[in-house]
């Protein structure tokens, strides 16, 4: 493998406490050397990238994406999804198991990571917690872990039965895997297609109450409490309500290992963005009230939120061009997460750049125990994003790398333009040749 030098850039590596101009040498897929500008020792024969005026950071990590393979390649493939990820500055994604068939097996877990998938970046499968994600029978977590699974989840199909969820937590803890719960009491959300409130009433749509999320988070926290095992790790996916966030906050104060992620659409948009039945504003959990959105922002700023994750959920155009209540849930997110986070969290809401980047790399890496990722300390994987932090640009969904176009952020102003994304020492995205 050839060596790569990135020269003249400003390195921000929150996990290593670095925030300075640095040159960096990548070799054999790892970070080989970091030095002050012009001081790298062994650069002979290395390809050189000039990052003058640009920022270098650990490659971004999205722990919640839907790559749609196997089985739904018309929406996205592992190749197109990871190309979109690389364009968005991501070097690792954790792929949810709601594929066709559901990823509840060693075979599918391996298949997803096979070189034949032509992934641009690293894909970490999240295996189904239960057989077929039906919420009944526990899968073989030890086997799934050795095949490469980094967590278990029945994303989209929450585990309702207390007894099953308890068993999942016990088994995952024994295997050393995190449990990611899509917190939704589906008994309260039957037939609903947006947040329950005055807006859903006015639009004549059945609504999902905030309690459908918070009650499930509270139930899960109670189960974790009862386990009395400090290794048990519950991770709350796409937290969308003030009440659920408050429950996580309380659990953390009690010393439990309960973490949560937030999606950009939940810190930016509210139920008002549904407008007149815009199916690009339909996802689950739904866009919530302004009070919930404000609580989510506050949670990011005060540090209770552990990670930004996109819940990248591509759908074909024709699937979204239908009656609102019949449209599938979800929007794409990989190509807009960094631009939206830098524009809103950093520029508008003054969250320091290092903390924004940490929410997109170091913290999600720590959450799922992705060793050697989320930092650029010497010896780490050579996963790097190089971007122009000052560049403002307009996102156009039609120019995206994802196979799908279902985004509410088409035409939005983004801050920070990715120049290169480097995955394990290899250039996965180059803005000039993209």
């Amino acid at each position: 493998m050839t060596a790569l030098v990135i020269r003249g850039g400003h390195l921000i590596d929150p996990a290593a406490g670095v925030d300075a101009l640095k040159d960096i040498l990548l070799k054999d897929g790892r970070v080989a050397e970091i030095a002050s500008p012009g001081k790298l020792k062994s650069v002979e024969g290395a390809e050189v990238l000039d990052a003058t005026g640009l920022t270098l950071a650990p490659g971004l990590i999205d722990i919640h994406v839907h790559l749609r393979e196997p089985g739904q390649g018309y929406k996205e493939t592992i190749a197109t999804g990871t190309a979109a990820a690389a364009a968005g500055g991501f070097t690792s994604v954790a792929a949810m198991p709601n594929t066709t068939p559901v990823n509840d097996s060693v075979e599918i877990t391996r298949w997803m990571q096979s070189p034949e998938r032509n992934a641009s970046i690293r894909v970490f499968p999240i295996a189904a917690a239960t057989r077929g994600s039906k919420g009944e029978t526990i899968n073989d977590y030890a086997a799934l872990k050795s095949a490469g699974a980094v967590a278990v989840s029945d994303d989209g199909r929450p585990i309702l039965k207390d007894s099953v969820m308890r068993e999942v937590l016990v088994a995952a803890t024994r295997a050393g895997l995190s449990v990611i719960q899509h917190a939704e009491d589906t008994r309260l959300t039957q037939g609903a297609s947006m947040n329950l409130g005055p807006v859903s009433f006015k639009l004549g749509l059945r609504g999902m109450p905030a309690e459908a999320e918070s009650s499930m988070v509270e139930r899960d926290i109670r189960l974790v409490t009862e386990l009395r095992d400090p290794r048990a790790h519950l991770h709350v996916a796409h937290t969308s309500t003030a009440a659920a966030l408050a429950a996580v906050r309380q659990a953390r104060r009690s010393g439990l290992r309960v973490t949560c992620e937030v999606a950009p659409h939940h810190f930016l948009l509210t139920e008002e963005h549904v407008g007149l039945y815009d199916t690009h504003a339909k996802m689950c959990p739904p866009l919530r009230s302004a009070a919930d959105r404000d609580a989510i922002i506050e949670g990011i700023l005060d540090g209770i939120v552990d990670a930004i994750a996109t819940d990248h959920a591509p759908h074909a155009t024709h699937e979204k061009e239908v009656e609102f209540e019949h449209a599938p849930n979800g929007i794409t997110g990989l190509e807009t997460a960094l631009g939206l986070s830098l524009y809103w969290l950093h520029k508008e809401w003054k969250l320091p750049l290092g903390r924004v980047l940490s929410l997109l790399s170091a913290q999600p890496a720590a959450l799922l125990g992705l060793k050697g990722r989320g930092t650029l300390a010497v010896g780490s994987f050579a996963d790097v994003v190089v971007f122009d932090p000052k560049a403002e640009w307009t996102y156009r969904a039609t120019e995206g790398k994802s196979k799908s176009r279902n985004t509410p952020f088409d035409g939005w102003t983004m801050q920070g333009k990715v120049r290169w994304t480097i995955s394990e020492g290899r250039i996965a995205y180059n803005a000039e040749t993209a």
Partner: protein
Amino acid sequence: MNPTAPSVRRQLKTPPASASPFPYNPGSLLSVLDLSLEGVSKILNRATVLEKEDPLVRDRILAKRRVALLFYESSTRTRTSFELAAKSLGADTTLVSSLSSSIEKGESLKDTGLTLRALGAEAIILRHNSSGAAWLLEAETRLPVLNAGDGMHEHPTQALLDLRTILTHLRPGVETVDAETLAGVTVMIVGDILHSRVARSNMLLLPRLGARVLLCGPKELLPEMAAQAGPGIVIERDFEAALRQSQAVMMLRIQAERLAGLQLDLDEYKASYQLTGQRLATFAPSSVVLHPGPIIRGLEVTAGVADGSQSAILEQVHNGVAIRMAVVERALTAQIGGRA
């Protein structure tokens, strides 16, 4: 709010929702909110003019223009009324219903709409069981779309014909309306508000003319948040107290097809909310009684009230044809004639 939530709230700028691009076509009538009060007045005026017009003259107004009726739900009043209205202006109409069409084979609303357009339809009148369907159809076809009822959302021509009926009784002779026209008038809407598109269109239209809208019904059918749908909307759960305040009483059917598992004790419902001759005589002896139909006699209203002297139910049906003539005419002439 949970006591452990942060107490400090920062004032942050957040991205606003973008302005609505609807309606794309000036001839469309998707929501009562698409109409200015001037636009409402024009429709009321044209309804009267067209109603009085010599049928042979009227027949030439939209001679041979093509109007499609696309119905995904069964309907007697609305469908027949729109069809008679369009035909009496000379238009050719064609009916496509979800049964006996390619919709049964799984054709999408978008494709059905584009097909109708390719067949030469110049406007589509849509009745659909999904809220928002009319917006989807308009966005995809860019034709004038008349919303003849979308799910639990809106039924704008019903609100217009209800307004015409209310005006006839409470403001006889008035056809040009403004923000004061119904000042001092209370209109109560009773029953299954949650599932009612008629209620939503009326509660969004009538307060703009100065009326107070009183919503009445049990919690299961009338959530508190209904009062936040717009200005001038108040909830009064006590049926008799509401009757005492109202000059117009609009009764609604319980929409069994939309209850989605909700269990209702019908005897209890009747005891609390049925409009009986006795209640009407005692609490609202001079009020006008409306009902969008279909009526379930003996449930929300007694047969005596439905057929009684205060009932304007058949007048409403009659007004429907006149209002829909005006709305269909507007749909097909909005661009050419420039009428709002």
